[in-house]
């Protein structure tokens, strides 16, 4: 037995390590309700500790490199330059190199100052509370589009906080360490952000593809979506506030798996490959500047004064209405209403009476035209006597008016076109023939 282990020691060690790692993988992956495997669940404490160790191992050198601005490019150029300097003119070239380095450093500082100034301007204008942070490292894998910030839980960062720049959204905080944080970029395959197209108002979910390009997936084929259309955050994912720029539509491609669906490739507004300074939205409570707060207070006070003025005006109107006589008094009989008062200088105007009233004339629904035959009158159909059908109410003088307006319409001051005593039928004129 001992010789077996000695003889197959190498494969056994390999097998043991592989099995241990496979078991570790099985512990981390879980199956969702829809039957898909996912890694989205929060890490267990053991895994979290490994990530913390890795972060503690890698972040300090990265921070050192970033703070001292010792890029590989600088080292490489300086190494080659120094070799040439020693061969030619050491002292003079050293001076030139020093000046070049200073110039490059100053130029880099100036560029960084400009970027920070733009970021500060955006931060001051932005309504939410944000925290500026520097990107110091990445995952090192093109399958994992994450990067690291130099701020962590000690600075107030928490999981699922949105990370943005002045140009657009960048990603969300995925893991937080004491002095650093891991950010999942929007072009990662496992990311997800609710977005909306600005013009067509089509909503979708943004995630990354294999090439590291953000794309909106699960959209029905729509001819209106054209390249160049702006993409904004929809605000439904509880991470990114609504209306932040995401990018513009670069192209629309057909979903390879489903015929009626399309994928919208988005050109991100933020430079996801070259991130330096970013803002982390630490609170989505609106934050107003002193000027904004003053404007809001002024607006509130003006609104209160205006409401008080309107209320006082309504009260005065009610008092005036109580004091002034009305056109109708419910306590008086109809013939004594103030509307019929002859002393009223502004009588209510009424339309003139029709010269040829018929059954469509207002107020004469039951009074047919005199020349209409009995068969066409509505009353005839019900077998009513013609005298009843053609009887008209009497006016205030007792004269018969075959076709008059209702009594209430007869008011002083008006000029009725049909006076009582006049024939109801105008004289028919025979058409004159030309000689």
């Amino acid at each position: 037995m001992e010789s077996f282990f000695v003889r197959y020691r190498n494969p056994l060690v390999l097998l043991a390590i592989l099995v241990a790692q496979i078991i570790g993988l099985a512990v981390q992956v879980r199956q969702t309700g829809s039957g898909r495997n996912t890694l989205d669940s929060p890490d267990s404490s053991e895994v979290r500790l490994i990530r913390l160790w890795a972060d503690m191992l890698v972040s300090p050198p990265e921070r050192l490199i970033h703070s001292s601005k010792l890029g590989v490019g600088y080292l490489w150029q300086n190494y080659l330059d120094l070799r040439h300097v020693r061969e030619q003119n050491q002292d003079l070239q050293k001076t030139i190199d020093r000046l070049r380095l200073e110039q490059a450093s100053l130029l880099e500082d100036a560029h960084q100052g400009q970027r920070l100034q733009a970021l500060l301007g955006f931060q001051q204008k932005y309504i939410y509370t944000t925290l500026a942070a520097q990107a110091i490292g990445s995952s090192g894998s093109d399958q994992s589009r994450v990067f690291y910030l130099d701020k962590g839980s000690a600075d107030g960062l928490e999981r699922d906080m949105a990370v943005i720049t002045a140009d657009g959204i960048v990603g969300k905080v995925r893991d937080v360490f004491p002095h650093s944080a891991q950010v999942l970029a929007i072009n990662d395959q496992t990311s997800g952000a609710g977005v909306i197209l600005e013009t067509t108002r089509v909503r979708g979910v943004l995630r990354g593809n294999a090439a590291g390009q953000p794309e909106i997936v699960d959209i029905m084929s729509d001819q209106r979506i054209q390249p160049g259309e702006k993409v904004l955050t929809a605000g439904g994912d509880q991470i990114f506030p609504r209306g932040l720029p995401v990018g513009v539509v670069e192209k629309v491609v057909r979903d390879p798996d489903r015929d009626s669906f399309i994928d919208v490739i988005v050109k991100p507004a933020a430079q996801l490959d070259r991130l330096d300074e970013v803002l982390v939205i630490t609170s989505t409570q609106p934050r107003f500047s002193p000027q904004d707060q003053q404007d809001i207070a002024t607006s509130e006070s003006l609104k209160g004064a205006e409401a008080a003025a309107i209320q006082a005006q309504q009260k005065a109107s009610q008092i005036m209405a109580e004091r002034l006589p009305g056109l109708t008094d419910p306590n008086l009989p109809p013939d004594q209403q103030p509307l019929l008062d002859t002393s009223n200088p502004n009588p209510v105007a009424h339309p003139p009476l029709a010269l040829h009233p018929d059954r469509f004339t207002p107020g004469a629904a039951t009074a047919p035209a005199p020349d209409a035959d009995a068969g066409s009158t509505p009353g005839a159909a019900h077998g009513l006597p013609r005298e009843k059908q053609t009887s008209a109410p009497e006016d205030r003088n007792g004269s018969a008016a075959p076709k008059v307006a209702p009594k209430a319409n007869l008011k002083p001051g008006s000029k009725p076109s049909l006076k009582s005593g006049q024939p109801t039928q105008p004289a028919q004129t025979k058409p004159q023939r030309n000689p």
Partner: protein
Amino acid sequence: MSVLGANFRRDLEIRRYPLLVYALVPLAALVLQAWLPRLLGRYAWFDLPLVVTVYFALGRRSPIQGTLMGAAMGLFEDALTHHAIGINGIAKTVVGFLAASVGVRIDVDNHTIRLILNFLLSLLASAIYVFINRVLLGLDLEWQWFTELFKAIGNSLIALVLFPLLDRLQIKD
């Protein structure tokens, strides 16, 4: 045939390095792998931890040490990502074991051999990575074969430059 002249026993020279090299070179590889993509963006077609794993596995000619080295590098690489920890670990464990096993049999000082070995082992690591993600774990991982090909080429070219530099650090009797 001088390349394949060594027999199956470990009669070739086993290289030894100062302890500091064992600690600092893998650490530098991990830090640079995490930092350089920030400068190079999507054109970071290399895997420095893999190259370092292959180098030490070839130099030490011990499959167990190569296995452990690959597992450690891969696990730390996984820990820097947001993926499951162990995917790169398994891939580099296999690579370390194979590199050390090959190093026992052939002379790995030849540049052509180093170039080909790095190229093939890089492709193998990428294949294992995709296999674990898509088949073993059933995750929806998209990948592009030409990216993996470029990465293998990049690893080979880096190995051509890096291996002679690391050779200078070995302890010579």
